[in-house]
């Protein structure tokens, strides 16, 4: 427990001092929300919907980059090899990464929520306030595995461009930047197959106090299984190469 806290503290401090990390995780989603969300949020419903969209975008970014790029870089770092000589297993460090991702994702969601209430007409019922964290957490899990899989399968040099190449198009196609009904027809069709779309379906439903679409839960569970298997295969391959 003491070790988990020590790693958590170190991970937080390390990232807070890294502008290259803060910008994409905290500033970029807030900025995009200010440019493309707030001007279009004339009614409570659209404001809530746009908040959910950009907050989903933020959560995707935090977990995907933290686990994806983080793991890719640590794989080739002597520091990580050194940490393995300390009297501890991998769990405190991994747990600290999860907690750290939760702090950054939570902060990013919070900033967008404040902007949505202050500068747009968003307004959340108690029910929405309780269901939204569940939706964000549920969606963060498959994308966390997605990041881990990416981190183990690509080289450190390719990690950031690769992550962006998946992050930005998936966000657009998934309908996180504009509602799916405004997407071009062909994109709207593809949208139905993306994990981002189904993550957003859950957060939209929570923000609008509508029932969760069961199909989206199933899609996300399926993606979780797929990404978890890819992550596990990548982890095993990497362990075999480095520590056999």
């Amino acid at each position, binding site marked *: 427990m*003491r070790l988990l806290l*020590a790693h958590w503290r170190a991970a937080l401090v*390390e990232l807070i*001092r890294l502008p290259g990390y803060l910008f994409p995780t905290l500033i970029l989603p807030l900025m995009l929300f200010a440019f493309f969300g707030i001007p279009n949020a004339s009614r409570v419903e659209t404001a809530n919907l746009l908040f959910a969209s950009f907050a989903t975008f933020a959560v995707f970014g935090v977990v995907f980059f933290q686990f994806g790029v983080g793991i890719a870089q640590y794989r080739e770092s*002597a520091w990580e*090899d050194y940490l*393995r000589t*300390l*009297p501890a*297993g991998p769990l405190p460090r991994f747990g600290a990464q999860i907690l750290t991702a939760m702090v950054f994702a939570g902060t990013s969601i919070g900033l967008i929520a404040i902007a949505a209430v202050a500068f747009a007409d968003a307004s959340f019922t108690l029910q929405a306030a309780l269901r939204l964290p569940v939706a964000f957490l549920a969606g963060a899990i498959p994308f966390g595995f997605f990041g881990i899989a990416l981190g183990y399968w690509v080289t450190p040099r390719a990690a950031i461009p690769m992550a962006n190449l998946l992050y930005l198009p998936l966000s657009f196609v998934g309908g996180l930047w504009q509602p799916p009904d405004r997407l071009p027809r062909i994109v709207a069709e593809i949208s139905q197959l993306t994990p981002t779309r189904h993550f957003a379906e859950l957060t939209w439903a929570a923000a609008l106090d509508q029932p969760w679409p069961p199909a989206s839960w199933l899609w996300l569970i399926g993606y979780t299984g797929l990404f978890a298997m890819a992550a596990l295969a990548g982890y095993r391959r990497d362990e075999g190469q480095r520590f056999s």
Partner: protein
Amino acid sequence: MAQPVAQLVGIHKRFGAKLAVDNLDLELPAGEVLGLLGPNGAGKTTTISILIGQRRPDQGVARLFGQDPRRPGARARLGVTPQGSDFPRTLRVAEVIDLIRAHYPRPRRTAAVLEEFGLTDLAERQTGGLSGGQRRRLSVALAFAGDPEFVVLDEPTTGLDAAARRGLWHAARRFVERGGTLLLTTHYLEEVEALADRVALIDNGRLSAIDSVAAIKARVALAQVSFQAPSVPDLPGIEHLSQAGTTITLFTRDADRLVRDLVASRAPFVDLRVRPATLEEAILNLTGNRP
């Protein structure tokens, strides 16, 4: 008999076609300082990585305080230096030390660790802004931060200036005086002389010799004599000879006598140079392994 701090029995480790470690046995009793020497690629790093639980041997048994070093509990009394010096760049020196201390049941005080390795003034500096020598000092400091009983230093003074090197030796001696056990790899014979009780030579993945420092030193204390000559004169006392064009390089235990013999032989030569062989050269000659 007391349990050895670290023990390797019949270790084999293969990487593809290369047998990195070949049936190696090694034992470190508590309180001993063992220097591990060998040419690059001889298997020193692989041997150490097995001993500290980073790699699994293909065959054989590794023991650290009587346990499998791959179990975290076995490493509770072990301190290691990081190989590279790439700490998390935005963490401060004292924060890195604190993170490592948190892994040990009774670590040393941060201030004491900073003081001992000359890092007190750098405590608040982010590690990304440290010089190469400062990073090395931090690396070594981390090995001692948890107040371990067994420390493994892999080339600790590479890249350190003379003062920092003496500081490190001082810290290592104090550690040993407190009863610590030390395993050290190095390229410098003087470092082994300054610190070690015994020396193990590793070559081609095998333990080729293990003996007191004095005995090993006598075996590896060679001089290199080189000159230009049309042919190789036949002289006594040559341990090893190599020829590249007209440049002849000889390794001998007694350079004075070799030079006298060379002059006395009246063989023509020019451009005579004499210097002590480096540890690397001496070991290569000793082990019969040519570079």
